[in-house]
């Protein structure tokens, strides 16, 4: 630990000891929380993932059987594919949508603060059970969406069966996540405000239009925030649980069964903690790989102002 630079002249040994370790004392509550609630379960789950640990039967077998099962069991591979689909649909769409709204809200328009607040509200509410229940009501066969479709078409068209048709169910879950674009939007908004105005002035003098300015100035200048949002959204998308669990419970026909739901089912319905841990670790490795790819690729597309 780095020693304090405070003058030690005339200080008692106890004071010197305190000077040296006081930073650690302040950190102890956090360290205890981290070790007990994060580090130990983290290590424990890695250990369990190589066992057939069952809550009620203990451990009888060690090895890679859970990982082997994960890549050969049709239900699990389907859930893996569904999770990838979910992430690859929601992450880009959410970023595009958040950036689009942030761009609009960056203009000097009336009641802009009110709009910013309104657009942020879904992010506060979105992950809640209540909204998931509401979503279910909105998209049921005779729910709000299908009622609107009937009204608009004067009763000639009936909307699809959003929640029971495997083709649509995943999109409904994705839509819930995309709708919660507020936090990404706020970050984009902050980044947009940080783009120097003189760049736009120079571009305007050079005859660049709005689109050209957006893609040649705005986007490059906010790439650090795009990068940050990309990484955090990927992490969150692979951990999504509430929406599919409450709205469809993984159905219909497992079309919305994400890996997180399987982890829950294995752990708390089948009591197979070994298998649940293995799936959690597979998910962790996937997120790590995607994050590494994102970090590696940032040299090619992320612009930092202090770099030459």
């Amino acid at each position: 630990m780095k020693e304090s630079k405070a003058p030690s002249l005339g200080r008692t040994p106890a004071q010197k000891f305190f000077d040296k370790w006081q930073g650690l004392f302040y950190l102890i509550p956090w360290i205890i929380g981290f070790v007990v609630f994060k580090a130990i379960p983290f290590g424990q789950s890695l250990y369990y993932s190589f066992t057939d640990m069952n809550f009620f039967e203990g451990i009888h077998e060690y090895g890679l059987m859970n990982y082997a099962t994960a890549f050969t069991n049709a239900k699990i591979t389907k859930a893996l594919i569904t999770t990838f689909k979910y992430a690859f649909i929601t992450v880009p769409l959410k970023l595009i949508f958040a950036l689009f709204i942030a761009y609009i809200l960056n203009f000097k328009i009336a009641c802009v603060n009110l709009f910013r607040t309104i657009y942020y509200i879904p992010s506060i509410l979105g992950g809640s059970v209540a909204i998931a229940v509401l979503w279910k009501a909105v998209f049921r066969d005779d729910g709000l969406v299908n009622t609107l479709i009937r009204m608009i078409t004067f009763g000639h068209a009936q909307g699809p069966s959003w929640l029971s048709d495997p083709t649509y169910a995943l999109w409904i879950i994705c839509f819930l996540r995309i709708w919660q674009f507020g936090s990404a939007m706020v970050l984009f908004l902050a980044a947009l405000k940080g783009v120097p105005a003189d760049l736009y002035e120079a571009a305007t003098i050079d005859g660049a239009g709005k689109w050209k300015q957006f893609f040649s100035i705005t986007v490059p200048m906010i790439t650090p925030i795009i990068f940050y949002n990309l990484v955090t959204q990927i992490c969150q998308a692979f951990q999504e649980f509430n929406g599919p669990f409450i709205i469809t419970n993984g159905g219909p026909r497992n079309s919305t069964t994400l890996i997180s739901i399987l982890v829950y089912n294995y752990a708390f319905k089948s009591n197979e903690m070994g298998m649940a841990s293995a799936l959690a670790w597979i998910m962790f490795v996937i997120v790590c790989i995607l994050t590494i790819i994102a970090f590696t690729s940032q040299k090619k597309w992320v612009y930092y102002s202090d770099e030459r």
Partner: protein
Amino acid sequence: MSKAISRRDFIKVTGAVGAAGLLAACGGNSGAASSTAPASSAAAASVEAVGGLSSDPVTLTMSWWGGESRHNAYQDAIKAFSAEHSNITVNPTFAAWSGWEDTMSTKFAGGVAEDVCQINWNWLYNYSKNGQTFVDLNSTTDYLDLSQWDEAQLAACNVANAQQCVPVSMTGRIFYWNMTTFNKAGITEVPKSLDDLMAAGKTFQEKLGDDYYPLHLGAYDRMILMVFYLESKYGKDWADPTTSTLNYTADEIAEGIDFIKSLVDGHVIMSLPTYYGSNGDNAAHQSTEWITGKLAGCFEWDSSATKYQDALDEENKPGFTVGEEIKFGDYNGGFSKVSMGLAITKTCEHPAEAATLINFLLNEEAGASIMGSECGIPASKAGLAAAQAAGAVKELVAEANGKVMAFVSNKLDPLFESNDLKANGTGVYQEVFDTVDYDNKSGADVVDILLDGMDAVGYTVE
């Protein structure tokens, strides 16, 4: 000065957000960490620890699932118990069934379940197969009068050579009909045969429209009715109740699945995709279709009568009727089982007081008269007598239970209710009947899904 983002700024922001997220995650997941401890590590109170009643203040915890009226009954009974045993305080935990088993299994595994638990019969096999979770109630006979139950009922709760719970009630499935809707369709008699059922399906569609069905069956209900049908036709238990060896061939089971499919095709029951479209995986009694009478029947536990009746709107409620068991073949199909039991967990520090509480609720006049038929018709003889004397047995429940017990003769094996088979969303039963309805498959096409799933949970499939 440039306002553009530097790498240093970026790292500062991401660091701050990351730290905040980590802290939030630490708080949010604190419960999960403790849940990973194996059941064997729970501090087990051995059966020898059952001593005398304490005169010091004692606090017990108790949990149950159920509806509003059951919650009220339990709470009133607990109040009466505490009035009688002034040194014992009982802290209750209760909720609806949805998600309850997940919660309780985690508590059992972590050794933090309540002292007295209302449990499902198959939990004895799932969570205390070796007697590791619940106290052997034979060690509490000074406080709990086991002679109030029939030997067969007690035997059903004797697992690993230990009396792990006492049955609260026995139950089986029976048809309930909403005669308000049936009358609208011009049908005045409850269906008593398969022909009546099929005719009702046709009449409902013709007279009331495509949205009306005489019966509703979820995936698990379909499985139970299929077994009912096969037992009725072949006169044998679904599986050996002790060894869980399946007694039916693949062809016979395929025939059973085709029977269910014929009900869908005949407009007797709604197809599962149609039901999911409006209700997701919500229970039938919570669906608008049931409440408004569009689904005019169900095949449910006899103890669920009031739950389904209470859910109906004012127009339909008076028409709620207990139906007749239907004989689909030469034999009486269907099974009875322990509906639920009360058990004492091994982590309980006051098993004598806990046993006294169970005895009060199920055997003693003061408790049983309050509990009435809220958990089904009491299995305890003294409890039943007290509930009847107090007029606390609901006629509807009594009628349903009477009809079920007089009809059914088959036994149920504990694996039938395994979570991997019956769970909503991911269970094998649902997969089978979803495949039939979504892909228009026959029984022969899907029977292997069922057999493989049963094999995976421990059935012997020959």
